[in-house]
């Protein structure tokens, strides 16, 4: 499937799974993670996006620094038993809890429900990269998977949004096996609508 301007939409080349994804269908987290991972895989392998890990890396960095403070406090206290270590313990403890606060702010404000950021090189090589953002959530006790796709064409800071809200039962069978093709075709439809919408401007 290619478009008149020659840009090939590579979604048809759906990456075939070496092993079907099977999850515990009653576990909300497992279901959401499986859906998110399948979407990320579709964009990465099927659509040629390069995943931008900076949000995740930021979170990992904050957590690593916090654990480092805690490990330092442990070792220092072993080498210089309390009460000699009092000042160091105070600094490490306070820093740790401040970092936990920073982490909470980071996940709730900066990350929000964004689970994927991908960059796709412009085939003509002239424009800056297109950016694709995925956000998803499933509310507790509800079976609906809400996926929000944002498309920011080359260098723009404001993007176009499209959402998909479907019951998870449309993608999983009774055994909990994920129907990747169905998800990919829905995602493809959203992506195409966003790209076409852009061209109409």
């Amino acid at each position, binding site marked *: 499937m290619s478009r008149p301007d020659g840009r090939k939409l590579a979604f048809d080349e759906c990456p075939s799974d070496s092993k079907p994804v099977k999850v515990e269908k009653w576990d909300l*987290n497992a279901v959401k*993670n499986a859906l998110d991972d399948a979407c990320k895989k579709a964009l990465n392998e099927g659509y040629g996006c390069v995943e931008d890990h900076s949000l995740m*890396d930021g*979170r*990992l960095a904050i957590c690593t620094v916090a654990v480092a403070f805690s490990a330092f*406090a442990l070792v220092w206290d072993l080498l210089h038993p309390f*009460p000699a270590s009092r000042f160091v*313990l105070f600094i490490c*403890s306070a820093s*740790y809890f401040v970092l936990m606060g920073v982490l909470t702010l980071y996940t709730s404000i900066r990350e929000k429900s964004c689970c994927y950021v991908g960059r796709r090189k412009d085939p003509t090589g002239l424009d800056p990269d297109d950016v694709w953002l995925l956000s998803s959530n499933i509310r507790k006790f509800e079976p609906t998977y809400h996926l929000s796709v944002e498309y920011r064409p080359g260098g723009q800071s404001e993007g176009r949004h499209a959402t998909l809200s479907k019951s998870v039962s449309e993608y999983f069978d009774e055994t909990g096996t994920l129907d990747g093709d169905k998800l990919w075709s829905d995602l493809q439809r959203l992506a195409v609508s966003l790209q076409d919408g852009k061209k109409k401007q």
Partner: protein
Amino acid sequence: MGLLELSCLDEVRRMDKRQLYYQFLNFAMIVSSALMIWKGLMVVTGSESPIVVVLSGSMEPAFHRGDLLFLTHDRSEPITVGEIVVFKVEGRDIPIVHRVIKLHGNEKGAHFLTKGDNNLVDDRGLYAPGQMWLTEKDVVGRARGFLPYVGMVTILMNDYPKLKYIVLATLGIFVLIHREN
């Protein structure tokens, strides 16, 4: 290899490097949070062991076996007769919770004698050989508050160490395998 093929490990097998590292960080953060709360309490209370469990009935009817005690250790305040102190005898790990019954001197180098409320004799039998009095350096803290029964969990874990390891290992594995959002 059979154990590694368990379906619950499917989730782990599908994770990439970052997600795997995040699982370990999650586990490390849970341990760190507990550690930092403990160290933070040490700093705030001034005691090297801010929370202790009463192991015997020697302080009945005030404290019973299994009670949780909250300690502070304000080194500027002198120890007085009648206070309930927690002390460690030199060379032994287990802290003892008894009441001060006699005091020699009132400066920093004060010596004091302790006795459990429910005991017939004073603690000289518990002190190190040749030691007749306790000093301030033996004291871990002074009892400021308590919670009844909560410490029974710790006593149970110490009486059956295998139970402790099984519970901790199970929790640890669960945290490492289970992927949160």
